[in-house]
């Protein structure tokens, strides 16, 4: 038995060694760096490979903040040719670090269409905003808050759940939303009063939504999520439902539009295939598919909306910050937030 075990171990390790030294088949390969939420139907990607005559090699690099930092660290020897997932909050940082190569053939941005800027071609967008548990509010009889200010009042004590801006992308964007909507001083003042009023901080979106949100067994009926989340709730419901169990609240200072785009990586190869990939991400097929695979709104105007997306409303207005301001002040804001809310 022991001999069998050891020979098994030896054979497997030999097999693995051969795996190590096996030459890497480098056919025409387009390396695409994406964030962890990237997801498109397989047939679509296969279709692109056939048309462009390249093999797609998709590399997942963490959430969007982590992704950009990995890109910056490896700029001397880029790990991919094209990147998807740089958003309007980070584009100035990417620009400053000189990791993006402007895509020349992008057509001028149409009026009303969202843009990322700085050579990044917009693919999709969504809004980070407060979601609420309809059943919990109906049960307590509490009216839905109409302003962020109301949330600091005693009747809304211990109801709000946010993600840590230092470890979570929606949490980070929500902090930016408060600064954009209320102004820096008033925003941090609001956070200080929210701390006193029992705001809860979770590590990331999944932890917040699945362990603390009242819809899933927690105690908090208000959570930072996306404008598209109610549509996903309907799409992934157990029984067929006609109304989402959650709703979205667009409060002044509580909405931020996140526009994600695709860009060429400076120093990456395969320029022709990379350009085709950028066009592919803007093609009607991808623009339609991404709505229910990544739960984002399509950036290309005139794209047909998926049926379930009627449960996802867009806000009439929202505030934004310039990417340059974010790049300059972001780290300070996050550490100031940490001191104010967590310490």
């Amino acid at each position, binding site marked *: *038995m*022991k001999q069998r075990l*050891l020979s098994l*171990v030896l054979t*497997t*390790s030999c*097999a*693995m060694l051969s*795996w*190590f030294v096996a030459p890497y088949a480098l056919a025409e390969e387009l*390396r695409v760096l994406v964030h*962890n*939420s*990237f997801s498109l139907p397989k047939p679509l990607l296969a279709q692109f490979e056939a048309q462009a005559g390249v093999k797609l*090699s*998709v*590399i*997942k*690099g*963490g959430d969007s903040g*982590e992704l950009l*930092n*990995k890109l*910056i*660290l*490896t700029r001397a*020897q*880029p*790990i991919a040719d094209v990147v998807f997932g740089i958003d309007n909050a980070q584009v100035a940082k990417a620009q400053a670090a000189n990791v993006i190569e402007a895509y020349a053939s992008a057509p001028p941005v149409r009026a009303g269409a969202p843009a990322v800027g700085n050579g990044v071609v917009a693919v999709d967008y969504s809004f980070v905003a407060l979601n609420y548990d309809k059943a919990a509010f109906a049960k307590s009889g509490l009216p839905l808050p109409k302003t962020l200010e109301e949330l600091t009042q005693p009747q809304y004590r211990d109801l709000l759940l946010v993600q*840590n801006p*230092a*470890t979570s992308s929606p949490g*980070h964007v929500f902090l930016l939303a408060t600064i954009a909507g209320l102004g820096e001083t008033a925003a941090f003042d609001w956070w200080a009063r929210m701390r006193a009023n029992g705001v*809860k*901080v*979770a*590590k990331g*979106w*999944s*932890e917040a939504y*699945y*362990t603390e949100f009242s819809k*899933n*067994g*927690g*105690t908090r009926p208000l959570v930072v*999520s996306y404008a598209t989340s*109610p549509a*996903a*709730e309907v799409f*992934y*419901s*157990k029984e067929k439902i006609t109304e989402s169990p*959650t709703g979205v609240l667009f409060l002044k200072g509580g909405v931020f539009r996140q526009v994600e785009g695709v860009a060429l990586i400076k120093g990456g190869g395969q320029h022709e295939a990379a350009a085709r990939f950028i066009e592919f991400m803007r093609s009607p097929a991808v623009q339609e598919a991404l709505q229910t695979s990544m739960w984002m709104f399509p950036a290309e105007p005139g794209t047909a909306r998926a049926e379930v997306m009627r449960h996802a409303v867009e806000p009439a207005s929202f505030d934004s910050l310039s990417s340059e301001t974010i790049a300059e002040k972001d*780290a300070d804001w*996050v550490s100031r937030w*940490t*001191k104010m809310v*967590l*310490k």
Partner: protein
Amino acid sequence: MLQKPLFQRLAVGLLPAGFLLVMLAAPVFRLLFEGGASALAGMVGALWQDDYLRWRIVWTFVQAVLTCVVALALGLPVAWVLARYEFSGRTLVLRLLMLPFVVPTLVAALGVLALWGPRGLISGWLGFHLQDTPWLLLYGNLFFNLCVVVRAGVDALAQVSASRVAAARTLGATPWRAFWRVEWPAIAPWLASALSLVFLYCFSGFGLALILGGQRFATVEVEIYTLVAHELKLAEAGALALCMMMLTGGVALLYALVEKRLAAPSRADVIALRRPATLRQGLAVAGAMLVLIVFCAAPLLAIVARAALAGPTAWAVLLEEETRLALGNTLRFSMTALALATVLGLTHALAARHSVWLRASAFLPFVVSPVTVAFGLLLLYPQWTASLPLLVAAYALLAYPFVAKSIGSALDSLPTHLEQAARTLGATPWRSFWRVTLPMIAPALRRGMAFAAATSLGEFAVTLFLSRPEWMTLTTLIYQRLGRPGAANLDGALVLACLLMALALAAFLLIETTQAKAIDNRTQRKINRKKAYHA
């Protein structure tokens, strides 16, 4: 003692040492270098001035020590009962013990909260819940770590010399005194080894405890992660990581020194298992089971129950193509990582017999902050970062200390005269290792392999590395589901967690079952022989 030249004795350690150098030391130094070495020195001093960070470091230390104390207090009696009494299902309990290791952190949190959370079952009975209290954090730490202490304790108690205990009892020692004077000295090194693992896990861990304890109880590793992955402040992150490395490295070195001093060859007469005869003994077994159910099994049962209640539509997830891909990958990666971890662990343990530094370095993969390793690898080998060998090597890196520690303890308590006898009778060193040493350390090897398999099946820090969609494992699939809203996603994740647990249990049974029988047979033969001799 058959003395060989030092370099020859250490030659076997070249493989693990080289592996540690390439996979761990070089990347970390690369990251520190990127951050600027000169900035580093100033940072270390400045860090301690920062009230918040100092509080974090102290808190991290306190919760790790507290967990060790409680894990020992609860784990040792349980281990003693499992090592001394025979009852039906005993071996299964030993295998089941390791399941907490496999469950993805977020799923474990769901299980724990289903019991102790605001709407939990137990909270409902008690009328209060534990969410956001340090108690839940401690509970989460015990859920993961109690099994480490119990398994090590069982193995340690199994090698206590029967005749010495019998002699002590004959000379009038109470069972308690016999335990304290005979059994405790024999098992102390094993427990020290297990507790060091627990300490390092709690110290650097940033999983379950963080979800359960809330962000205020975050450990320093979270701070390092934020600095590296989100703010790219490599100098500060490097300084902080270095501080933690010195602290934990000190613990590891201290442990290695203690272990080397305590190491004593045991005698090959094992204490036979007996059936609980008196009411007190029966109660002891029941009590041990109760501890294990409350701390280890209950959250897992909660997960299984929630998945079972989800209904047939949720279970249809098992038939999806994605699940098949993930299952295949999980098997493939774990098996490769396990093979690599076994070779590394075995060679490391053999070489570590002669060097305190090598002994301490087996802890390195737990001591060094995972995010610094991940980003260091990215800087050092950019062209390899999205390659499978690197991913598998990362799995093996995190898994092999279990094999090394487990075998290390076994080698320390190995009776030396048997190997010497084999050598005197003309066996080559290789042959005496193959026929004498290996059979005797086999149980420890298997225990280490089971833990290594559990770590490779589970997640730990591998999520920090670059990945590819086609490398989807069951754990990443579960996280993908929990990354989207909707009841069907939650149910699917719970069902997949059940599949993962079933797979892990099958792996544990496969790795350890034959050994358990072999030991039992051997023990039985020995007992029979003794009986015949006395008659």
